[in-house]
């Protein structure tokens, strides 16, 4: 055996042994950009990679390095995690696959066993990714189970039934793991669930705490519901939130109230639907909340990724949490107190005159859904949706994939039946060439638009910004593209052949930066070409 081969084997063995994602590594995920350790790449939800090998100067040479074809057809919305040479991703229905990031070959597969009676009311049984902590991979299942898998083998460590799928509860989002807990939210407001956010002991699966997003009578906020409406009040927690370890606060967006389009039975603001909640991560107690859309009747969930960064707002440098909300407004809040700092629309909307000094929307008249329909922008899918925004510390810009689309909102009578739709209306979106999209760069402190790159149709793909000065995004028509992060100028695009309905990530393997995105039923992984001597062009 040659010394070189021996050295190579030892390197591989060492890599294998180091596959322990400690809490310390998660807290400083940004310092190891060759990996992508959480849903958003860091606990703060920035979806920014410091990797700088791919630049505006060389991005036109970017090409596929390998492709993984999902076995389960269906919307492929995964955001992969990359740890020490292994990529963990989920397919439609929540199957988990571990891949060798050099070759793209499958290391193991975990196949979900789902009941034939699976309920998915209001969404497809999709899955947006896993969380990894220590040597365990955590995944939610569409029948509302949380599953812990051994990271090396895919073997099951434990399974917890988070809620009853027969009532419409489901899990589609990636869990968020840190410390010694794994936090997971639920879907199901379209079936009239009472939403909550759970934290489980990462080792045993024991419930640490549960925060109900709809307060029960007597609890603060219960005065914002009428009668028994809180019992079916919705408030899903279906998209991954963010965590600030220094404050010990967990930030999570809460979805729409139930019934969706008919608010007659739930007079009041309906806390904490369509809100951002800040919870003490150790206990699950509410520290503060901010409601973007009081008494929502348009399905404008606050299920967007809250993005944590520091910014100079009103002349003061402070920790903030920003959200480009589904209701069409961009908001900046004080991360410690939840105080509203600033907000402005990032799309053309016509439901609110603006925001008052507290951030509450100043409503225009006649915006409620009606029997004959009410035309309004944005449509139910919002100015953006679960597709991730990105914040670049390099450019100090906030990037959002924006949807410009209106619709006609209808209201019907509604009554609750367990495990059935609880909607009370419908929507007929305005299709055709009036529906458009854009990648927009916003001043993170004010929300003012710095540049906008037009997209043919309202996008369903998130964004990634990089230290190389690029923003990567995707379109419904299959184009994966790179924009100049400072100007928005298009620099490169690649037709993947399938709708891009996922968030891009970046990692490094063998000294080469890679960018990966799910498109159609394939995960496409891009890198610059290797040249003689193994040096990648700079």
């Amino acid at each position, binding site marked *: 055996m040659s010394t070189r081969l021996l050295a190579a084997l030892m390197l591989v063995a060492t890599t294998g042994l180091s596959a322990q994602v400690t809490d310390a590594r998660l807290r400083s995920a940004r310092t190891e950009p060759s990996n992508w350790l959480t849903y958003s790449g860091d606990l703060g939800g920035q979806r920014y990679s410091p990797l700088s090998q791919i630049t505006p100067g060389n991005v036109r040479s970017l090409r596929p390095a390998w492709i993984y074809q999902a076995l389960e057809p269906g919307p492929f919305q995964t955001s992969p995690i990359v740890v020490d040479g292994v990529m963990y991703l989920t397919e439609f229905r929540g199957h988990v696959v571990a891949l060798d990031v050099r070759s793209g070959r499958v290391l193991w597969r975990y196949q979900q066993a789902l009941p034939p009676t699976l309920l998915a009311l209001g969404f497809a049984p999709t899955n947006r990714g896993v969380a990894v902590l220590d040597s365990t991979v955590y995944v939610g299942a569409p029948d509302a189970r949380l599953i812990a898998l051994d990271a090396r083998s895919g073997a099951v460590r434990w399974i917890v039934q988070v809620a009853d799928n027969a009532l419409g509860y489901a899990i589609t989002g990636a869990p968020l793991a840190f410390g010694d807990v794994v936090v997971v939210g639920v879907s199901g407001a379209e079936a009239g669930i009472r939403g909550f956010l759970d934290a489980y002991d990462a080792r045993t699966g024991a419930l640490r705490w549960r925060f109900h997003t709809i307060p029960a009578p007597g609890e603060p906020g219960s005065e914002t519901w009428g009668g028994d409406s809180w019992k079916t009040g919705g408030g899903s927690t279906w998209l991954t939130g963010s965590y600030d370890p220094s404050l010990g606060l967990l930030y999570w967006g809460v979805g729409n109230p139930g019934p969706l389009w008919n608010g007659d039975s739930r007079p009041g603001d309906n806390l904490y639907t369509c809100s951002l909640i800040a919870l003490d991560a150790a206990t699950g107690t509410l520290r503060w909340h901010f409601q973007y859309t009081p008494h929502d009747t348009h399905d404008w969930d606050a299920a967007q990724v809250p993005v944590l960064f520091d910014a100079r707002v009103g002349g003061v440098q402070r920790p903030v949490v920003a959200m480009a909300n589904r209701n069409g407004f961009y908001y900046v809040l004080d991360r410690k107190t939840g105080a509203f700092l600033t907000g402005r629309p990032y799309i053309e909307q016509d439901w609110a005159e603006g925001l008052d000094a507290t951030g509450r929307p100043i409503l225009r008249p006649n915006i409620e859904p009606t029997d004959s329909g009410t035309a309004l922008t944005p449509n139910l899918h919002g100015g953006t949706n679960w597709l991730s925004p990105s914040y670049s510390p390099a450019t100090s810009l906030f990037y959002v994939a924006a949807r410009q689309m209106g619709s006609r909102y209808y209201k019907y009578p509604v009554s609750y039946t367990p495990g059935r739709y609880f909607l009370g*209306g419908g929507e007929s979106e305005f299709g055709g060439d009036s529906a458009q999209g854009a990648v927009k760069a916003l001043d993170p402190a004010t929300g003012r638009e710095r540049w906008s790159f037009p997209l*043919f149709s309202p996008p369903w793909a998130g964004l990634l910004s990089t230290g190389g000065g690029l923003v990567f995004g995707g379109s419904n028509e299959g184009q994966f593209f790179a924009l100049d992060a400072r100007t928005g100028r298009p620099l490169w695009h690649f037709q993947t052949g399938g709708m891009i309905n996922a968030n891009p990530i970046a990692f490094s393997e063998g000294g080469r930066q890679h960018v990966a995105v799910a498109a159609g039923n394939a995960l496409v992984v891009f890198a610059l070409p290797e040249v003689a001597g193994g040096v990648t062009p700079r």
Partner: protein
Amino acid sequence: MRIPLLLTTLCLAAPPLPAQGPTDPATSPSAEDLSAGERLFESQCSRCHGVGGTGGVGPALTRPRLRRAPTDAALVQVILGGVPGTAMLGFWNLSENEAQQVAAYIRSLGRRPAEVIPGSAQSGEGLYRERGRCGDCHILQGQGAGWAPDLTEVGLRLSASQLRQSLVQPGAEQPIIPLPSVHGPYPAYLMVEATLRTGRVIKGTRVTEDDFTLVLRDADGRLHSLDKAGVRRIRKLFGESPMPSYAGVFTDAELDDLVAYLASLRGEP
């Protein structure tokens, strides 16, 4: 892990079963079913099938017999499950009862008095083949040229008044076929004028489009695959059509004949 308290409260909140027993709104609808079906239809279906089911991107439903849904049960199945391989997607958000109400409303459209089509389909066929030279652009039951929409089933998609308007004012309505491999009903056959950076102007119907690509077919039938980076200006000419108006070409009676012929085209041999 179940939540016993929640489960109990939800069961208590459930409404009682309807007193009249399990009748199927699709086959024996009440007035309330029909009105609920109409509301659902207008909010969920009319974008493609037109207000009142008069047709548009999707076929008109104002007819007694629906080819893909010969029975009420089949119609409910189409509503809930969609038609594979077409733009008709299943409506996941409807309960079975709601789908039955929509089905009942659609059936009621088919029972309305049929449109009076005064012309002679036989004379219309002659006009289509000879003086109209429609087959120079359109394909029909495999015959003709495929530059323009296939008319084999046009009688299923458009009402007589829509057919007449498309002959007299071809650009007035959006083209009826959506672009393939595009998310949402963006119309194909839309007239687009692209001014290239070189100054050259290309005008044609849109075959496909995305963020970086525009493919047009010009009046000579040539495809132009354009990289938008090389295009200075794109004008979408809503209201224009490559099809000439037949208003001055045919008399009113002849137009009636042509409409009668087109209305008879149901895709059946």
